[in-house]
C-alpha cells in the first residue's frame, strides 16, 4: 500500500522548506507545492474507498491509515498515526484549494516573499496535519503548527495595529490550546487508554461515567469554541482580520476556524457522546447567540473586513448549532457549511483586500459606485455576497438548507431564529452592495483600475468552486456521508 498521507505530508514539508530558502523564487516554490498538493488530494478523493469499504485497518472506519511507533517511553505510547474519513477529506480539499488561491492571490507580495510564502505553506501543512492526525499529541503538534505562522503573518505583514492584533490572537488561541491540551491529556489518563491513538481513546472512553464525561468535555469545548469563535469568545477575530494581510485573513477564516469545528467533532463529540449530550443546552445557547450577534454586528460595521469577520461568526454559529443537534443530518450540514464558508469567506476577504489596495480604504461609506470603474471586482464581490447570503446554485445554499432542515428536525420552531437572521444577513450584504457597488461614484482615486490578473484568477477559482459544488452538492455530500460516524449509512 502506498503511504499516501505521508507522501502528502512530505510534499508539504519539503515545499515549506524549499519556499523558505528559495529567496526570490519563493512564490514559484509555493505554487508548485500547492499544485502538487491539490493533485495529491485529488488522488486521495479518487482512491477513497468509502465507509464501510475496508477491513483490517487499525482504526475502524478510516482510510489510508498509517501507524508507526513514535515516542514509546515507559508507559507512554505516542504513535504517528494518520488516516482520513469523509469529513477530513472534504476539509483537506478545502485546504488545498485555499492554499492555491492564496498563493496566486499574493503573487506580487514584495515584503520578504520567501518568509511570507513559507509561512502560508506552513499554515496549510499544519491544517492538513490536524485533519489527518489520529493521535492526540500529533494532533496537538499540528494544531500549534498552525498558530505560530499565523501569529507572524499578522504580526509582520499586517496593518497599523498588527502587533496588538497578533498578540491578542495568540494569547486567545494559546490559552484555548492549553485548556484543550489539558482536557485531551486528562481524557487519555482518565479513560485508561493504552496509547494516545484515537482508536484506543475512543474505545476506552466508553467506560467513563457521565459525570466524568461532562467534566472532560467542558475544557475541550472551551478550547474549540474559542477557535470557532463563538460569542462571547469572539473579539479576537475582527481585530485579527482587520489587521491581517489578505492572505492571512483568507487562511484565518478559511482554515483556522474550521480547525475548531473539526476538533469539536472528532476529539470531543465522537469520543465523549454522553458528556456532549449533557452540555448540549450550552452549545445551543452559544450557537444561537453567535448567529444573532454576528449578523446584527455585521450590519453595524463600516469596515468591509470587519463586516465579513462578523458574518463569519454568524456562519460558524450555524456550524456550531448543526454540530449541537447531534444528528447525522446535522453533522453533514456542519461539514458542508464549513466547506462552503471556507470558500466563500476567502472570496470575500480577497475582495476586501482588493478594495483596500485599489481605493486606499475599506470604509464602506467612503467608497461608492465602483462598478463602472472596476466591473470585474464588482462582479466578484457580488458573487461572494450572494453566495454568502445563501443564493441557490451557489455552495452556501445546500449547506444552509441542510442545516435548517436538521435544525427543524432537532429543535422544531426554534429554527425560526436562524431563519429570521437570514433576512438580516441578506440585509447587510445588500446594503453594502448598494453603497459600495452602486450609486454615483464616490471616493474613487484617479487611476484606479480593475482587479490585477493574478487576484482575479484566484477569486475566479473560488467562484468556480462555489458554482460547481452549488450545482452538484452531491459530490461533497456523498463523501461526507461515507464517514464512520454515528447515524451515517453503514454504522
Amino acid at each position, binding site marked *: 500500500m502506498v503511504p499516501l498521507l505521508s507522501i502528502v505530508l512530505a510534499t508539504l514539508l519539503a515545499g515549506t522548506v524549499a519556499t523558505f530558502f528559495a529567496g526570490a523564487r519563493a512564490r514559484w516554490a509555493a505554487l508548485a507545492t500547492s499544485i502538487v498538493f491539490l493533485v495529491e488530494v485529488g488522488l486521495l478523493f479518487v482512491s477513497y474507498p468509502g465507509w464501510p469499504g475496508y477491513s483490517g485497518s487499525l482504526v475502524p472506519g478510516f482510510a489510508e491509515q498509517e501507524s508507526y511507533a513514535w515516542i514509546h517511553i515507559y508507559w507512554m505510547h505516542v504513535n504517528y498515526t494518520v488516516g482520513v474519513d469523509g469529513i477530513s477529506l472534504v476539509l483537506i480539499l478545502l485546504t488545498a484549494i485555499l492554499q492555491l488561491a492564496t498563493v496566486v492571490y499574493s503573487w506580487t507580495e514584495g515584503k520578504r516573499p520567501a518568509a511570507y510564502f513559507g509561512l502560508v505553506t506552513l499554515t496549510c501543512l499544519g491544517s492538513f496535519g490536524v485533519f489527518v492526525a489520529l493521535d492526540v499529541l500529533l494532533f496537538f503538534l499540528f494544531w500549534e503548527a498552525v498558530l505560530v505562522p499565523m501569529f507572524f503573518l499578522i504580526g509582520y505583514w499586517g496593518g497599523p495595529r498588527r502587533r496588538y492584533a497578533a498578540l491578542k490572537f495568540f494569547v486567545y488561541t494559546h490559552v484555548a490550546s492549553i485548556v484543550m491540551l489539558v482536557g485531551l491529556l486528562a481524557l487519555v489518563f482518565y479513560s485508561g487508554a493504552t496509547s494516545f491513538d484515537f482508536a484506543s481513546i475512543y474505545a476506552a472512553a466508553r467506560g467513563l461515567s457521565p459525570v466524568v464525561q461532562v467534566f472532560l468535555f467542558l475544557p475541550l469545548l472551551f478550547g474549540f469554541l474559542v477557535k470557532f469563535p463563538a460569542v462571547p469568545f469572539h473579539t479576537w477575530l475582527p481585530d485579527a482580520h482587520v489587521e491581517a494581510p489578505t492572505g492571512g485573513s483568507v487562511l484565518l477564516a478559511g482554515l483556522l476556524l474550521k480547525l475548531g469545528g473539526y476538533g469539536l467533532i472528532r476529539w470531543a463529540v465522537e469520543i465523549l457522546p454522553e458528556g456532549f449530550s449533557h452540555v448540549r443546552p450550552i452549545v445551543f445557547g452559544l450557537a444561537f447567540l453567535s448567529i444573532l450577534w454576528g449578523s446584527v454586528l455585521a450590519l453595524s460595521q463600516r469596515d468591509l473586513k470587519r463586516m465579513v469577520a462578523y458574518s463569519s461568526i454568524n456562519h460558524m454559529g450555524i456550524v456550531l448549532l448543526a454540530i449541537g443537534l447531534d444528528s447525522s443530518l446535522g453533522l453533514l450540514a456542519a461539514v458542508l457549511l464549513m466547506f462552503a464558508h471556507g470558500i466563500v469567506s476567502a472570496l470575500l476577504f480577497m475582495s476586501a483586500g482588493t478594495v483596500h489596495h485599489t481605493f486606499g480604504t475599506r470604509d464602506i461609506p467612503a467608497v461608492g459606485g465602483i462598478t463602472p470603474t472596476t466591473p470585474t471586482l464588482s462582479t466578484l464581490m457580488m458573487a461572494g455576497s450572494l453566495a454568502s447570503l445563501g443564493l441557490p446554485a451557489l455552495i452556501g445554499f445546500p449547506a444552509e438548507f441542510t442545516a435548517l*432542515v436538521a435544525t427543524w428536525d432537532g429543535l422544531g420552531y426554534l429554527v425560526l431564529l436562524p431563519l429570521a437572521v437570514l433576512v438580516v444577513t441578506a440585509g447587510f450584504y445588500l446594503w453594502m452592495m448598494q453603497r459600495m457597488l452602486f450609486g454615483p461614484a464616490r471616493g474613487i482615486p484617479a487611476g484606479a483600475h480593475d482587479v490585477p490578473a493574478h487576484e482575479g484568477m484566484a477569486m475566479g477559482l473560488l467562484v468556480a468552486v462555489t458554482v460547481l459544488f452549488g450545482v*452538484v452538492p*452531491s459530490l461533497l*455530500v456523498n463523501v461526507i456521508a461515507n464517514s464512520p460516524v454515528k447515524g451515517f449509512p453503514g454504522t
Partner: protein
Amino acid sequence: MVAFVVVGLFGRRLARLEWGGWVAVALSGAAMVVGVLIGIGEILGPATYVDRRYTWLHLAPSSAYPNGFSLVMGTLVDPISALMLIVVTVVGFLVMLYSIGYMHQDRGLPRYYAELSLFLAAMNGLVLSDNLLEFFLFWELVGVCSYFLIGFYYEKPSAASAAKEAFLVTRVGDVMFLLGIFLFFYEYAAAGPVGSGGWAANGFLFVQNGLPFLQQGPHVATNPTILTVAGIMILGGAAGKSAQFPLHVWLPDAMEGPTTVSALIHAATMVAAGVYLLAVTSLYIGFTATDSLVIVGIGGFTTFFAATMAVVHPDIKRVIAYSTVSQLGYMVLAIGAGFTMVGLFHLFTHAFFKALLFLAAGSVIHAVGTQDLFKMGGLKKAMPLTASAFAIGGLALSGIPPFAGFWSKDDILASVYSTLGSHPDFWPFFLLAFASVFLTAYYIFRVWFLVFSGDAPRDASLPHAHEGPWVMRVPMIVLSAFAVGGGALVFVPGFDRLLLKGSSFAGTLAAGIPPVYTTSDLLLSGGGVALALAGLLVAWWLWGNGRIAPASDSAAVRSVRHLLLERYYFKAGYDWIGAKGIYTAARAADFFDQFVIDGTIHGFERAFAGASNRMRRIQSGVVSDYAAYIVAGLVVVFVLLLLVAPFLVARFGGA
C-alpha cells in the same frame, strides 16, 4: 427538449457582442416555439409528463426521515405549467424584441440581455419544477435576476435602493416559504402509498405515477395545525413574490428598472410566480380551510387596497404597478376560494394585457422622456398606434366585454360569489373585489385621458413625440390581439380542455370548472360591466379632453390624496424599522461588543498581567519579547503537564 430550452437560454449569456441583442431575441424566439409546441401538445394530447430527474442531494436516514431524504431536480409538464410556459415564452420573446428598439441608447446592453436571458431560463425552470425545493431554487434565481434588473441603472441611488428593497422584502417572504417547505416535508415525510418509502425518500415530487401527491394514499396521520401553518407560510412566500399585502411595498419602487423589465418581470411573469406557487400547492399538496380564508382575505383586501393607491399617483408606470398588485390580488382571491384554474386563467389574460400596457407606456416614455402624467397630454395624434394599444389594454383591464379581462375577471367574481352561500365569511372580501372593478376602470382611463386626450402636452417643453421603430410596434400589435381575443380563447375547445384538465386533475377541485360559461349569473356580470363603465365615465368627466385637475379640492380630499401618495405610510414605516430600529440596535450591540465583552477580556488581561509596565513591555514590538512570551506559554504547558502527572502514576502505576 425541455432541457434544450434551459440550456439554450443559458447559452445566451455568451452573447456579448453588438448583435448580442439579436442573438438573445432569436434564442428566446426558439424558446417560444418550443414552449408553444409543448402547450399545443398538452392541449391536443392527453396529460403528458416529461419527467427526467437526477438526484441533486441525498441525505442519509435520520430519526425524522427513516428512509432518507432525497432532493431531486426534474421537469414536470402538466396543464398548468404548459399554460405558464406559453405566457413566459411568448411575452419573453415579444419583450426581447421590443427591447431592441427601446434600449438601443443604453449602456451595458450585453449585461441587460444576459440578465434578461438568465431570468427567462430561471423562470422556465421554475415553471417546469417537479418539487417544491427545485421550485424554491429557481424562485430565488428569478428573484436575484429581478434584483439585478431593477438596479440596472445602478448609478441612480433610487434604483440601487429599490433593488435592495425588492430583494429584502421578497426575502422575508422567501424565509416564510422555506419554513413552509420544511413543515410540509416534515409532516408528509412518511406519507404516500404503502411500500413507496414515503414522500421524503421519493424526492417530494408533486406527481408520482401520474397521481398528484394530494391524491396519493394512504396518508399517515398528520397534524392539521402544522399543515395550516405551512399553508400560511407558503402564502407568505407568494405574498412576497406577488407583492400582496403587507409585503406589497417593493413592486411600485421596482419601476426604477427599464420599462421592458417592468413589463416582463414585474407584470407578466415573475410576480405571477407567487400566484403560480399557490396554484401548484393547492393542486398538488392542498390547503386547509383556515388557509383558504386567509388567502381569500389577503387577496381580496390587496385588490382594493392597491387599487386605491393607483387612483392618485402621478407616475404612469407606478399606476400600472399598483394595478398589477391589485390584479394579482384577484388571482390570489380566486385560488383561495378554491378556483385555482380560474385564478390561472386571469393570470394568463392579465399577463398579456398588462405587458401591453407597460409596452405602450414604454413607448410613451421613449417618445417624451418623462413618466409624469401631468406633463403629458394630447399624444393621441402623434402616436395613434400606442394610443389605441393602451386603450385596448385599458379596456381589457377594466373588464369591458369582449376584451380578455372581462372573461377572466367576471369568472373570478362569479366563482367567488357562488361560494358565498357556504362561506359567508368570504362576503367582505368579495365586496372589496367587486368595488375594485370601479376603481380599476377609473384609474386606468384617468391615465389614458391624461396622456392621450386633449390638444397638446401640459408641459410645452416635451420633445415632439413619434412612434417607435417596428420592433417596438410589432409586439404591441401582437399583444393587442391577445388582449382582445385572449379571453375568448376559453371557448376554443382545445384551450378549454387545458383549463379543464387542470381542474379535474385535482379531483376535489373539479368545482373549479368555470360555472359562468354554463349557467352565467347575468346580473353579476352586468353589474360588473356597469361598474366598469361608470369608472370609465367618471375618468372622462374629470380628466377627458385634456382637462386639468379640478383646483377646488377640499381639505378632506387633499388629506386623503396625501395618505394615498404616502402609501398609507407603509413604506415609511418599513424604512423606519430597517434604518432606525434595526440599525440603531446594531450600533448599540457594536458598542456593547467593543466595550463590555472586549473590555471584560482586557480587564482579565490587566488583572492577569498584574502591572501595567508589564503590559507595555508585551506590546513593545521587540521580536525577542514575543519569543519570550511564547516560551512562557510553553512553560505553562509543561507545568500543567506536571500537574496531571500524578494521574499518570496513579493510573499506570509504573507499569
